[in-house]
Every structure is written in structure tokens, then in C-alpha cells.
């Protein structure tokens, strides 16, 4: 776990970078067994088409560049791609957008990802406090985090009862528990994720500054959760 994650982190540091692109961040998360979609990094449109066929359409393209951390601002994400023709078109489009946004952008490749079934959105994050060390954050995604700031923190290492308390502490908890006739969300999967993130942070605390898993889709009870986007910032 730790060795694999450190290899990726050291690789990034060796290039003089402090932040991991989504693809790299997800490699680190994968090393700790966090739930991730089957995704591949393509260096050419042809390669992307090959991967898209393996994954199955519709797919998503996300351009990976260390200079572009806000992918939607730079319009380098293309969703719901139905076939090879559309993929080629979008491939050109996101590269063009990247050049416009940051002419000097170094492009590491394009992440080919499946279109995920939408779930309830949550955010899991990490920050470092100067006195108490690293803390994990949990909250509901979208407006809940943006506007209501309905989040809760716990200091690493986190025990299972703390992870459950985090989920139940947020005001939006009824949304996860199943409000308005909805089925309850897979909270066990979330607890498992929080504990894995805690372990990851505990191992890598000398390197990690901040981390966002945002959004994470959580599905109905028994159906798990999936990290859609991830960002890691190093010290």
C-alpha cells in the first residue's frame, strides 16, 4: 500500500510538482483499496478509442495536465461520449480548450472513464491542522458543501465509531438515511472509505497537505460508492 503510493508521490515530487493530477491521485487511492471506476490514461485518440471499447460507451474524457487543476473551468472534460466518431471530435475539442486556457499546459494524457450511474453526492477531504495534525472531512456534496458548509471533521487516526458519528453528525444526514421515501444510502461503504482514507493519511502524513475526493457517488445500501474526482496536494 504505502510503497505503491510513495512511488507515485515521489515521481510527482521528482518532477518538481506539489499537486497530483486526478489520474495520479487515483493511483494513490487505489493503493489503499478505495473504490474507483475502471479508468485508463490514453496518450492518443486511437488509444482512447481502444480503451473506450474495453470500458463500453458512453464514456467520459478528462484531460490531465498539472497546470489545469480546475478541469471544468478549463472545459477539458467531455461527458456522455457515445461512439468513436464523437470521441475523436471531443478529443480535439478538449485539447484545443486546454491550449486556450493555458498555452503552456503540459498534457500527460487523457483519462478515459465510464459514465457513472449517478448517486447521492458526498465529499471526503483531508486537511492538516498546525496543532492537531491531519483531519478528515465528510459532508454531502453540491450545495450542501458549497453554500451550507454542512461538513464535519475528525482528527486522524479515526476509529470506526468516529466514522459513523461523522456521517450521523451532518445536518443532511436524513438525505443519506433515506428521506422522502428514498432507500438508505450505503453508509457502510462510506465508513469503510473514511477509515481507508484515515489509514492512507496516517501512512503518508509526512507528504500530504490536502486532499479532496469530490464528488463521491454513494449508491443505495449494499451497492457501494465510487470516487468520481480526486485531488491531492503535497507539502
Amino acid at each position, binding site marked *: 500500500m504505502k510503497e505503491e503510493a510513495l512511488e507515485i508521490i515521489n515521481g510527482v515530487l521528482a518532477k518538481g510538482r506539489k*499537486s497530483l493530477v486526478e489520474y495520479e491521485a487515483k493511483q494513490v487511492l487505489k493503493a489503499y483499496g478505495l473504490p474507483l471506476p475502471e479508468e485508463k490514461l490514453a496518450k492518443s485518440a486511437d488509444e482512447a478509442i481502444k480503451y473506450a471499447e474495453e470500458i463500453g460507451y458512453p464514456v467520459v474524457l478528462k484531460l490531465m495536465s498539472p497546470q489545469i*487543476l480546475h478541469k471544468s473551468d478549463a472545459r477539458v472534460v467531455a461527458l456522455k461520449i457515445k461512439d468513436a466518431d464523437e470521441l475523436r471530435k471531443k478529443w480535439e475539442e478538449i485539447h484545443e480548450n486546454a491550449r486556450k486556457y493555458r498555452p503552456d499546459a503540459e498534457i500527460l494524457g487523457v483519462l478515459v472513464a465510464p459514465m457513472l450511474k449517478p448517486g447521492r453526492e458526498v*465529499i471526503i*477531504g*483531508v*486537511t492538516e*491542522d*498546525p*496543532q*492537531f*495534525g491531519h*483531519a478528515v*472531512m465528510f*459532508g454531502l456534496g453540491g450545495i450542501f*458543501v458549497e453554500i451550507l*458548509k454542512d*461538513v*464535519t*471533521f*475528525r*482528527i486522524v487516526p*479515526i476509529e470506526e*465509531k*468516529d466514522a459513523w*458519528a461523522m456521517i*450521523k*453528525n451532518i*445536518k443532511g*444526514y436524513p438525505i443519506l*438515511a433515506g428521506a422522502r421515501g428514498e432507500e438508505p444510502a450505503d453508509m457502510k461503504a462510506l465508513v469503510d472509505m473514511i477509515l481507508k482514507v484515515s489509514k492512507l493519511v496516517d501512512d503518508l502524513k509526512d507528504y500530504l*497537505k*490536502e*486532499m*479532496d475526493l*469530490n464528488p463521491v457517488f454513494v449508491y443505495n445500501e449494499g451497492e457501494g460508492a465510487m470516487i468520481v474526482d480526486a*485531488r491531492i*496536494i503535497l507539502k
Partner: protein
Amino acid sequence: MHKTFIALNREFPSENFQFRRNFNEGFKLKVMNMEKPRIVEELKPFFEPKGVAIIGATDKKGKVGNVIFENFKMNKEKGIFKGNIYPVNLKLDEIEGYKVYKNVREVPEDAELAVISIPAKFVPATMKDIAEKGIKAVVIITGGFGELGEEGKKMERDILQTAKENGIRIVGPNCVGIYAPDTGVDTVFLPENKMDRPSSGNIAFVTQSGAFAAAMLDWAAMAGIGISKMVSYGNKLDVDDADLMDYFIHDEQTKVVTLYIEGVKEGRKFIEAARRITAVKPVIALKSGKTEYGAKAASSHTGALAGADTIYDAVFKQTGILRAEDFEHMFDVAKAFAKCKLPKGDRVGIITDGGGAGVMASDAVAKFGLKMAELSKETIDFLKEKFPPHAVAGNPTDVVGDTDAQRYKYAIEAFVNDPNVDAIVIITLFQVPLLDEMELIDILAEYAQKSDKPIVAVAMGGKKTEYYAKILEDKGIPVYMTPERGVRAVAGLVQYAKYLEKLGE
């Protein structure tokens, strides 16, 4: 819902519960089995020194060194302070019949504590004298160190180095130090005629701020809140919150610890000590102070959302520390811990002689995440049989304005025996005409004593009410001015009981 008390979604109550029993039996089971850490011995001379050297003692009225000397002298005359007093001052030979020593090196061998109030620039050298003398506990009242720039910080480093090399523990600098009513240690330099001292009790109070310490002690004296020990540590050069929490675990007189914190320097140490103490004694914290986060540009969502306040919230939740909204809240809850047993669950029963007050209490039950108890059929039947038709048997039970003490007694008896009630809030408007106040007080005291449920009282009113409230408190029942404050105190008991129960799982 009130942010401090978020009800956890779990099964509650449980009957057989070791931690709760520990609390109700005065922690003896748990604490007896714990190994005493070194800190207990190290801090002992701060609270019960055989002799105290007062460095900077003077006969000039109003001077810090004079007030501290007078405090010890007065407590010795009263027979509370049992140690010897050794004033130290280069320029004096005698103060009010006490021999004055030129240097701390000359004081007799039984001096175990030194209290320093001389100007900052003389403190580093004095520390070396103290080290030579072999005194291991020092309170530095003097200000003008780290809080005033680089030169002061350098002096602090020198002082700390001397301390570390010689195994000396320091409280302060820039503080009011120690107040221990049972042993007569009182380094609070605000004179008795300007600031009252609270009586002896079970609440320990730890504070960074000296001003807050003084204001709180004065107020606690007025409010009749008993203090076991007060420590104001100021710049926290050495002894900090974590050390004191470890000390209070083993302090038999302390039942509950209150902390006023501006900032924690060693986060890990704090977390570990907090976990140790909350497993046996409740800790209530009031946290203030701005953060360095404001200036920090965060590159992630999470970083942007993390304020020091949210992090402290996390620390308190994880370590079982109850967070107080304000000063009043802190001591309302502390008072409940000092006097009450821990509840088995979160179901509250309310007895009142005024309908409006009952509604206010019911609202507060919801606000603080508690539940209104559903009374058993036996309780309802019993009350209906004993009550006149216009009194209300229910929750709240309203004994109404023509009540006498006996009607209260029926209600309390029924609530105490009802397995569906975990905690009882009794609202007494002492003003009603037929109520014999002393009879009611005795009934309350009797049930608070024999029941294993927490019982708190609410008494709203003026001077006469205050008079009876005081008697009631002296008999071991916490009394609150409003239904909301009474219920909020119960919520604190419930929150801690839940924390303990989760620990036991």
C-alpha cells in the same frame, strides 16, 4: 438542533453499564486501577506545599507581591494553609512578623513551591537560585515575556532550560496561578476585598486567561459554585492543559474539569490526555480565539472549509470533551456533573407548578436533542388517583398553582419509579401560596439522594427564590434560573453518558 448536542442515532439506554456506575460511585473503581503518572507527583507541591517561598513579597499594600503574601498569611491564620510561608525580598528584613529572606537560596528546606512576582528581567537568574535550592514547583505570575516579543521569548527559553535541566515544573508566566480552597494555596493577586473566593467543591477550573480566572472565581463565589482547584497558566511555558487533565484524573476531590482554552500548542498530547480523563471524569471546554486559518490560502475545498473552530469541534467530539457555548453554559453543566448521577438514557420527565414553564422546558428538550419521556400507565394512574381533577398527570406533569409540597412528592415519587424516565427536571415556582418551601426542599433532597436518576431543579424568580435556591443547592440539587438552562445541563449529562457508553462497547 443545538449544535453542541447532536443526538447520536443508536440504542440507548442500557441497563448494565460499568462506566456509568464508575461515575456514580465517584470513579473509585476506575481510578484505583490506574497507574499514577509522574505528573501527579510533580504537580502536588503546587497544591499542597509544605512551605512556600514568595519571591517579591512586599509590605506595600496593593502590590502583587503583597496580595499574594497576604493571601497565604490569612489562610494560615484561618488554619487552611498548613505550610510555612517564606517571603523573599532583597530589601526587607521582616513583613508583618514574618522573617524575610534575601534570596530564595536561604529559605528553609521544606520550601516546595516558589511564587514569583518580581519583574521579568530578574526571573531567569532567580530560576537558577530556585534550581540550586532544589524547589521543583514554580508559579511565575510576572508578565512581560513571550507575549512581548523576541527578548521576552529568549528569557522564556532560558527559564525553561533551567527548569528542564533541574526537573522543575512551571505554571505561567503571565498568569494568576493557583487557587485551591482546601489547602489555602492562593496566588491570585486580586485582593480579597475586591474579588471574592469561591468555596470548596468538586469542579476544577483551568484557564489560560488570568482575567477570566479572576472574573470566574468572583462570579463562582456569588453563584455558590464550589471549586476543587483553579489553575491559570497564562503563557503555558511548561505545565499545560494536558498535564493538568492527567493530574485531575487522580485528584479525588475533582469530579468534573472545566477548561477555558485560547489555543493548544501540542495537539497530540492534548488529545491523548483528554481521552484518558474523559474515560473517568467529564471535561467541559470553552474555546475562544481566532485562527491562523484566515490568512491561509487553501488549494482544496477541504482546506477552505477547515477553520480552527471546526477542528476543535472534531477534537472535542473525538475525545469526549463537552463543548460549552459560553461561560454560563460551562458552569451550568459542570454544576450538574458535580451534584447529579449520570442518566441511563435521554428521556426527560418534567414536573412543574406553572404551565408556561413546562412548555418552555418541553421546547428545550427538543432543542437540545433529548426526548420527552412517555410515562408508564402506572405513573399516570397513580397521579390521577392522587391529584385533584384540575392538576395534569402527564409529561409535563403540572401540579398547578394551588399545589402543596405533598402533590410534588407524589409526582416525584412516580417519576423516580417510572422506568421510562431517565432524568427529571423539577420546576418550582416557589411563589405559589400553599407551597411550604422547606418541606418541598426536603422532599427534593431526599429523592435526589435515594434515586439513581439525575434530578435538576428550575427556580425562576427574585430574591426569595434565590434564597430557597441556595438552600436547595446546598442540599445537593443543582438549581437553574430558567427551564432552558436546566434542560441544557441535563443534555450535558446525557451527552457524556452516551460517550461513556460508546467507550464501553
